[in-house]
């Protein structure tokens, strides 16, 4: 075994370990403010963008949709611009991405992904019916996937979990990759109220 030769700097360090440690602790108490960002929704926006890679839309819908991949938001926009920034200049399945804020039910059918804001969105049955008919992937929050939604981004403790209602997704003609399904909690359809 070779003998370790200590450089002089290190000798100083060893002798004054406690002092250095104390100095670091002093620097500790400098006050300051940090502006917090809504992390939860930044993560959910990233999910929306990422999920699309693992989902296949039915052929007919892809042809009808044409050149643009549309992510629709139903409800008051919680993303604060993060979603638009995330998709800017990006392509999903080869198509440029657009974010739309929806106000009417008939716009639902034009989207490929629909994000439904909030814990108890109104008109869920109608939205779900539109989504199934036009092959739209619906993503929501909390118990969304347990009530007619396809994908739920659920905050649990300090993280966001993924819930997938495969039955609903299949009804809309969507296929999900096994890699995605393995990571998600699958919600059985029987649990919907």
């Amino acid at each position: 075994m070779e003998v370790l030769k200590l450089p002089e700097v290190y000798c100083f360090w060893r002798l004054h370990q406690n002092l250095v440690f104390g100095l670091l602790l002093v620097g500790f108490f400098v006050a300051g403010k940090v502006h917090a960002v809504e992390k939860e929704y930044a993560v959910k926006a990233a999910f929306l963008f990422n999920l699309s890679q693992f989902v296949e839309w039915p052929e007919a819908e892809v042809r009808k949709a044409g050149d643009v991949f549309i992510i629709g938001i139903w409800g008051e926009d919680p993303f604060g611009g993060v979603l638009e920034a995330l998709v800017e200049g990006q392509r999903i399945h080869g198509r440029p991405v657009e974010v739309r804020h929806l106000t009417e039910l008939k716009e639902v059918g034009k989207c490929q992904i629909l994000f439904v804001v909030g814990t108890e969105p109104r008109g869920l049955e109608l939205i779900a019916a539109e989504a199934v008919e036009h092959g739209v992937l619906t993503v929501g929050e909390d118990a969304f996937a347990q009530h007619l939604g396809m994908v739920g981004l659920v905050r649990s403790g300090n993280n966001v979990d993924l819930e997938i209602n495969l039955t609903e997704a299949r009804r809309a003609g969507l296929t999900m990759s096994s890699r995605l399904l393995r990571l998600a909690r699958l919600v059985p359809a029987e649990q919907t109220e």
Partner: protein
Amino acid sequence: MRFPDGRFFRGFVRRLAWGLPFLLATVPLSGLPDIDYSDVRELRMLSIEELLQLDVMTVSRRAEPLSGAPSAIHVITAEDIRRAGASDIPEALRLATGVHVARSGSAEWSISTRGFNSALSNRVQVLMDGRSLYSPLFSGVFWDAQDTLMEDIERIEVIRGPGATMWGANAVNGVINIITKEARDTQGTLMSGGGGSGEDAFASVRHGGQAGERVWYRVYAKAWERNDTVLPDGTDPDERRLFGQTGFRVDGEASPENLWTVQGDFYDGRWNQAGQDQASVTGTNLLGWWSHYYGEGNSFWFQAYYDGYDRDLPGAYAERRNTGDIDFQHRILLGDRHDVLWGVNARVSGDDVNFEGAVGVSPEQRTIQMYSAFLQDRFVLVEDRLDLTAGSIFEYTTLSELEVQPSVRLSWRASPGQTFWGAVSRAVRTPTRLESDLVVAAPGTPDVLLPGSFDFESEKLWAYEAGYRTRLTSAVSADLAVFYHDYSELRTIAVSPERTRPVLTNQGNAETYGLELSVNYQVNEWWRLKTGYSHLRKREGFTGPGTQLGEGEGNDPEHIFVGHSSLDFGEFEFDAVVRHVGVLPSPRVPAYTELDLRLAWRPNPEFEAALIGRDLIDSHHPEYGNLREVARSIYGKLTWRF
């Protein structure tokens, strides 16, 4: 005279720095650097696996794991375990960078990190779901009794370096956290079984369901029989092991802010010992915790557990132990800059020990109490760039004085996808029951040849570490850690002219230094590579008066390499794990390179058939000591999920 060499690490208080519920979902996969939420480029680069791990509640703008980035950490995921075909926890640990797993007998492993591995190695704190797994008798882990359904392991976190306040444990060289899946992630029924050479036969079944709208449960049972070690000449001494275990877990959400868990296991195992009667081990544990979230990111957590076991090794010793532990932790976000965590822990462990032969303890029954408190603050120094974590744990046990173990860690996000970190920590290894109460007597006489001593002090460590994590491209990430450990007051057996017999003293010192490098490469859609290399150098010394009897502790390789390749093609999966461990100096064990292969067929998510080969290169090879060698084994496994 057989003297149990090796570390008698006693980390009575395990401090999971951020508490189990926090850790449950917040530690990143190995190599995940801190990211800036406002930097969408970074957000885009994250995979779904990484998004699921992000903590959305911490104080700063950064998406950092709650448990803290500034440490050398490797996470073995559930997928790693499944793809490598690891059938027990020691086998899974071989996949982590910098962990030396050495099999020395049919039911004996030496597992350590950053050196000082030995037959009773313990400078590493090991926990399963917050429950400490070692015996305070000699602070070692009985790996033969630590089992669970491998499919129910969520991940295994391996932290190299002093755990202390950051990761909680009074752990000198490292911490291993085995975390099982939440019950809601193990719903439905799973059945698996198989057999072959070495893994003679095994079967397990697990069922998970709901017992109310927000209550999930699972119950499982497993049994196996194994015989995979041989004598150095290749003959089979028939030291087959039989093991059965059953357990349950219930998770509940009284409300989104109030989570709780109750879990327990019972196991019974026995194995043949050449030339002796059969050995047996049986144990029970029960654990419960409750956590409450309030405000914005604050939480507190309360846990209690009981762990009892009965080990009987005819010809060596018998130990019966009952342990009770209570733990409380509180996390508070102060202002926008401080993320404070503090906690208290109390543990009581009573034992009844009987040794045969020259080595023993006196008294043979003892109850040890351990108390500790810790405080830690993560403080943002420069918004979005630099943060400092400082804290300390204060520990008192029946066999030691008050020990203080501070740690300071700095994390610097140099640019998107690149993080540097550094840490200075003091860690202490408190005396164990064996060191305090040791009696080594000449057989048949009352003469004590080597007494334990209440004067035996804690061993000390000052550790200096630094690391660099980077995401080189969206497909490649790398994680480098370097360390320098300065040990003092290490246990020695010393003789001197003044003393009539040798005594246990703290006259040893040592320095270790090295590096650990992990590189992950997602080559393309269907091929992934994970590699890990570690390098270790060690120098040991002895400070007088007197002379040392015997050698310093630990028998460690200079190099450890592990590489895991995962291929997907159609319904098939093909995995290869290459493992290389360098020469062990003394007692000398030659270097070895081994290969594990797994070929699996998964026609649908419900069914999997796998053919697994382990240690395929040599028909048998030694890993530690010269009594037993690990034999090549090939077996098949079928798994149904429904």
